[in-house]
């Protein structure tokens, strides 16, 4: 078996707020191989962003605090590294594309300058003109028209989609081994979304980078990910290969998410939606955090008292539920 590129073990992160403690990530473990694409899905507040930011030491401390776990990148644990040591990883080995392209670029610095900086900081000995040439090349690669001219413009002169492309160009600048995209299209128009995803795919192919794609959109995940992690209340509730998750989901939450995707083939008269609200992360329900909303085990005492552990439910397929078998049949019941 090959050594994974990234292995996250038992990661736990909390935010110590003045009046409460938010356990944003609770014992999350996963791994990712070279060239592989991992999708992370889950409702708002489920800890997706905090998980990936922690890997690069980017959560604000305080109030954030990593309370446990490891994040091995090529065998090296990144969590205890100093900011200075992390610098050579950030943007070079692992890079990120963020959710909101409108706020993720510095408004008072030219796009080209920000791009050149990403190159320069990891290759300070290379000449300015080389960086510039490469910067223009990168803008061209992500499909920005007139890259020479665009290089010298400010972010506000770019459209939202173009800014996200520029972000992708910046992320790919040093040919990272891992590209993390945190809801890269959520803030964009539907028509632009597809283009940006294409750009992302192309960039990934160009460099052969592994990638993590965080999204609310299961449909998108099915198009580009090899494996998926489903998160709920800062925990992984199900993990598996894309085909298994879509054809044999085992966790009621995953099943609910899948049932709420609009589908072209199955014409449902009414789209399913998971009842209730995502949990308040400062007051996560005891037992299985999903129980107040669960159609399968919501009424059972074991679900209210014992938090289920992640367990094998198939080949490279895990779920954290006391009643995975019933969940599967509940799904069959609904489909008919």
């Amino acid at each position: 078996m090959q050594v994974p590129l990234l292995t996250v073990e038992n990661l736990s992160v909390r935010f110590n707020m003045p009046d409460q403690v938010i356990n944003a990530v609770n014992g999350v473990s996963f791994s990712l191989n070279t060239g592989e694409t991992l999708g992370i899905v889950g409702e708002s507040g489920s800890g997706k962003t905090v998980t990936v930011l922690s890997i690069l030491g980017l959560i604000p401390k305080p109030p954030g605090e990593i309370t446990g776990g490891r994040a091995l990148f090529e065998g090296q644990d990144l969590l205890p590294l100093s900011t200075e040591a992390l610098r050579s990883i950030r943007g070079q080995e692992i890079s990120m594309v963020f959710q909101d392209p409108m706020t993720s670029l510095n408004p008072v610095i030219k796009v080209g300058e920000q791009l050149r900086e990403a190159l320069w900081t990891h290759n300070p000995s290379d000449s300015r003109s080389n960086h510039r040439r490469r910067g223009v090349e990168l803008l061209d690669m992500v499909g920005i028209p007139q890259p020479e001219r665009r290089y010298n413009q400010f972010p506000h002169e770019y459209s939202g989609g173009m800014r996200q492309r520029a972000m992708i160009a910046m992320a790919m600048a040093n040919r990272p081994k891992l590209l993390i995209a945190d809801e890269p299209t959520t803030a964009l128009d539907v028509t632009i979304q597809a283009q940006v995803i294409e750009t992302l795919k192309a960039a990934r192919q160009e460099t052969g980078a592994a990638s993590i794609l965080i999204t609310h959109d299961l449909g998108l995940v099915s198009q580009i990910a090899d494996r998926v992690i489903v998160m709920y209340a800062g925990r992984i509730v199900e993990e598996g290969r894309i085909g298994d998750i879509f054809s044999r989901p085992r966790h009621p939450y995953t099943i609910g998410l899948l049932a709420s995707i609009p589908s072209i083939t199955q014409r449902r008269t009414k789209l399913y939606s998971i009842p209730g609200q995502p949990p308040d992360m400062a007051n996560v329900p005891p037992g299985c955090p999903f129980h107040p909303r669960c159609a399968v085990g919501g009424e059972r005492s074991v679900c209210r008292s014992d938090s289920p552990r992640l367990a094998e439910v198939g080949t490279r397929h895990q779920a954290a539920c006391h009643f995975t078998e019933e969940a599967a049949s509940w799904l069959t019941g609904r489909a008919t």
Partner: protein
Amino acid sequence: MTRYVARRLLHGILVMWIVSTAVFVIFRLVPGDPAAMTLGFDASPEDYEALREELGLNDPIHVQYLRWMGNLARGDFGKSITHGYAEVSSLVFPALGRTLELAALSILLAVIVAVPLGMISAIREGTWVDHIARVFTTLGFSMPTYVMGIGLLILLAEVFPLLPPGGYVPFGEDPVKHLSQLIMPVLTIASVTAARLTRFMRAGMLEVLSADYVRTARAKGLTERRVNYWHAFRNAAIPLVTEVGVNFGLLVGGMVVIEQIFIWPGLGWLMIQSILTRAFDVVQIAVLVSAATFVIVNLLVDLTYSWLDPRIARS
């Protein structure tokens, strides 16, 4: 950009027109007309009438107004009767120069202190540096300028007679003395202004430091120094320019008390002296020049701002 400048200029001219009209109205509405003000209450009716005639106060009001505006437009500020018919501009402008000198040096010192202090206290939020900076700003905020000024005067001129207790000697006459006379008023004004600017800088930096683009800059692998002093600072500096400009404008018009304490013959001092000697012809021009300085400073601030912030300049 040109249109922006033109619009701001027009705006400035409009404000000046309103101010000069207001000065005209106020100085003619006050009980006892300018002639009575100049002569005082014990003047003879003949003198009074003669002065009214000389000042043109017997002309219809619109003629007076047009004459006033016309003179201002030509830059003719008139002669002061109480000052032996000296040109008013020869009194007001040197005073303005002395006030500007004081204000500029104070602002400069305040900025030199406040920018690094505010930045460091934001970057090291919650550490001892931050606490010290906050004690300093709270002190600066809570202490009235005159208390600070008088305190310094007692300390450095009375108890330890290191500095002259105020006064003014032109730089060309005695540079050393000139500078030593500047120290206390500059320290007084600068400490209060620095407190205000430090707080502003700290708040601005804190806001910017949690911005998404600062996270992006870190994610790229930039050094902390580059993130803080380039990405964050550039954004925090833009509103600071406005704040510095506004403070400077306020100083120019608000120097009255300090100039009295340190006997610095600036614009505020001139205004008080002219009021005491009933030189209304000087007071009205001093008020006008003070307002004009404020308008010009604000205009320069706006232009600098638009030049610094690409979102305004090029949209």
